[in-house]
């Protein structure tokens, strides 16, 4: 079986969530199939400048084909288009202009997909909201699997994407909340979908003591790992932790790992360690008492999964449906929606070692059961096998003169409206659509029982 992973950026030093996800999936599926990666020459997701050479390359044994980005993103134009489609009534043409402005505009990649689609059995597209996924899925819909990595942001409310969610052959969701959101916006229940998520490359040997010595962090600490950004909820985290530190005696420190975009407040109990190596990151998480995830928007928190893999409890922002759902399903993390809950939960995790250990143990079990690589690989392979069976069945019917499989073709022929209809401003602001979507963690009774068992 020949698979192509289609992703906006790819490389060993590119650590964005979806990109890392794509790399892990490519490297693990390469053990079971012939995998190559189709991507762009960009490294920077803000400008999409062509920084890497076009052509073929190899990363960790995987063949990469890079295609140049036709034009870099203009932040000004993108902001203008975003304002129009997110906040005002608009047309399909406006949304297409927004998609072009967002980028990475790679018509060469789309042309390659169209021209060479017969060389691949299936294409796995990452991140529904980018140019390559939208145009790529439209070009090779009958072979397209989508890993949407959708968050609860206004882009999910655009009118462009529901046909894509209905048109892909299969969707590999990151979480039940993501699946519920996409099904609600696109009504794509007929498209095969499975909640897969992503595993992690946790090192075999960890040394928390080495980390403590290296960074001279000898007190107990809570850790945040990721970009230190307002969008990630870090401003609220700083505010809450400073209040907590002022009111609660003790030595619990907040350690921050990651590049800082938001200024870190000078506080004796807040330590910014900067960008660290993977080994240091995992050592730090192993040494921490608890991982804090303050983000408001996530499609799946890999960091939380890594903390659980290491047997550490998580304290998450309960206003993020996905994080809250993860905590409830795993029984491995507490969550907060305001300062009082933040302080009480953090105090509880700090004081009650038994509880922290039990949550950590649940987390480890949850990770092993749902996010270990054999499980993830198995889900991908099962889905690919299912699609192959469907294709074989359809081919047999075709050879026998029968009707093609309706499920396979369903929703795949959705065309864009005509020139005039495309310019009619009849679409509501995307933010309104997003806000009307159902909210809350998708935790069923069965999943809770299963997670307890």
């Amino acid at each position, binding site marked *: 079986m020949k698979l192509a992973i289609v992703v906006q950026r790819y490389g060993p030093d590119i650590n964005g969530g979806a990109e890392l996800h794509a790399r892990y999936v490519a490297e693990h599926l390469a053990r079971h199939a012939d995998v190559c990666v189709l991507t762009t020459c960009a490294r920077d997701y803000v400008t999409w400048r062509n920084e890497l050479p076009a052509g073929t390359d190899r990363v960790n044994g995987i063949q990469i084909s890079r295609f140049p980005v036709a034009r870099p993103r203009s932040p000004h134009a993108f902001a203008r288009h975003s304002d129009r489609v997110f906040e005002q009534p608009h047309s399909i043409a406006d949304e297409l202009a927004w998609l072009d402005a967002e980028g990475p505009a790679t018509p060469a990649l789309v042309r390659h997909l169209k021209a060479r689609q017969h060389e691949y059995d299936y294409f796995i597209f990452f991140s529904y909201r980018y140019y390559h996924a939208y145009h790529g899925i439209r070009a090779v819909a009958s072979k397209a699997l989508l890993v949407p990595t959708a968050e609860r942001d206004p882009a999910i409310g655009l009118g462009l994407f529901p046909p894509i969610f209905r048109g892909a052959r299969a969707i590999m969701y990151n979480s039940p909340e993501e699946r519920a959101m996409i099904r609600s916006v696109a009504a794509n229940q007929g498209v095969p979908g499975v909640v897969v998520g992503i595993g992690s490359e946790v090192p075999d040997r960890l040394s928390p003591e080495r980390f403590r010595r290296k960074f001279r962090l000898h007190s107990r600490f809570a850790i945040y790992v990721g970009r230190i950004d307002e969008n990630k909820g870090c401003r609220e985290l700083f505010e809450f932790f400073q209040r*907590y530190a002022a*009111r*609660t*005696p003790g030595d619990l420190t907040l350690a921050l790992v990651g590049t800082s975009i938001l200024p870190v407040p000078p506080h004796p109990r807040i330590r910014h360690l900067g960008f660290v190596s993977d080994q240091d990151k995992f050592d730090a998480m192993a040494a921490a008492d608890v991982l804090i995830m303050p983000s408001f928007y996530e499609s799946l928190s890999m960091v939380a999964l890594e903390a659980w893999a290491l047997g550490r409890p998580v304290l998450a922002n309960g206003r993020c449906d996905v994080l809250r759902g993860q*905590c*409830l399903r*795993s*029984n*491995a*993390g*507490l*969550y907060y929606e305001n300062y*009082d*809950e933040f*302080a*009480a*939960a953090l*105090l*509880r995790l700090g*004081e*009650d070692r*038994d*509880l922290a*250990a*039990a*949550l950590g143990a*649940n987390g480890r079990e949850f990770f092993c059961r749902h996010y270990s690589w054999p499980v993830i690989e198995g889900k991908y392979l099962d889905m690919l096998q299912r699609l192959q069976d469907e294709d074989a069945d359809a081919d047999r019917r075709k050879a026998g003169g029968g009707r093609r499989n309706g499920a396979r073709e369903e929703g795949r022929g959705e065309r864009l409206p005509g020139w005039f209809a495309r310019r009619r401003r009849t679409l509501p602001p995307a933010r309104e659509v997003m806000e009307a979507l159902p909210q809350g963690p998708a935790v069923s009774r069965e999943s809770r029982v299963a997670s*307890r068992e």
Partner: protein
Amino acid sequence: MADFNIRSDSVNVEEIMQQIRARIREKRGVDYTEQEIRDLAAVKLEKFLDPSKVRSDLLEQYRQLQRDQANPYLDIDEDLFGSPRPWVGKVRRLLRPLLKLFVNPGPLMRAARLESVCHAQWEEERRQLQQLQLFYELIHNMVVETTRLGIEVKNLKMRVESLSDRLDFDERRARALEGTVQYRPAATPAPAGAEATGPRDEEGGAAAESAVSKSRRRRRRRGRRGQGGTTEQTPAQAAGSGESGAHAGPRIEGEAGPAATPEANRDERPGASPEGEIQPREAGHGPDTGPGSQEPGT
């Protein structure tokens, strides 16, 4: 944190979160945020006015109202024939009879007067409306403050109840400890001579004062006892208060004399169990009501 009751082998995050939230609610009691107070006040206000129309520039509005009140009513003659320039006004008034020969200004003046009255009435109504709005605002502020005060009173009541409970407990504990302190040393038997001297001293004891050196020593001792002693004495204490009664301190710490009768001590200690321990109910209150039991940071 003692009332959380989760076994580590059966963790349920949802339950823990419910417990945490219940505990937060319990701790906050009737303590509300500013927004919640306003919401509460708005609910009360909605019964009789629309809080959204309440203005915040109360003082300025009152001042403006005062200024508005200074506006004079329209003077028809003055406005029709007057002028800012005095000589023009004078000429107009001189020519006024002449003007009446050509036109009849009566209806015009009546209309002007009517307009003036209407305007005055409108002004008055406007002013009343403004005043009403100001009253609304005053009422709004009063309701907010009353709500706040009500909540504070509830808080204070809870606090007073808590303090009085704590005080009761402290008193009971103090009594129990006093009992321990008073009766354990009393077990030391008082010598017969001492029993005899006690009453003699109280009656005057003139015969005993014959020995000068002994008497001085006794007086000194008595003086010391009088300063540090307790006013309430049980019969057992009185029995032990003789010369040979020695000191109270060491006795309290359990250094009872050889002839002490434990049975007597046990029987007479208030609030003590037969085994010589403080009643468990009182002792058990310590960690719950003591000041140190309050969780920091919440």
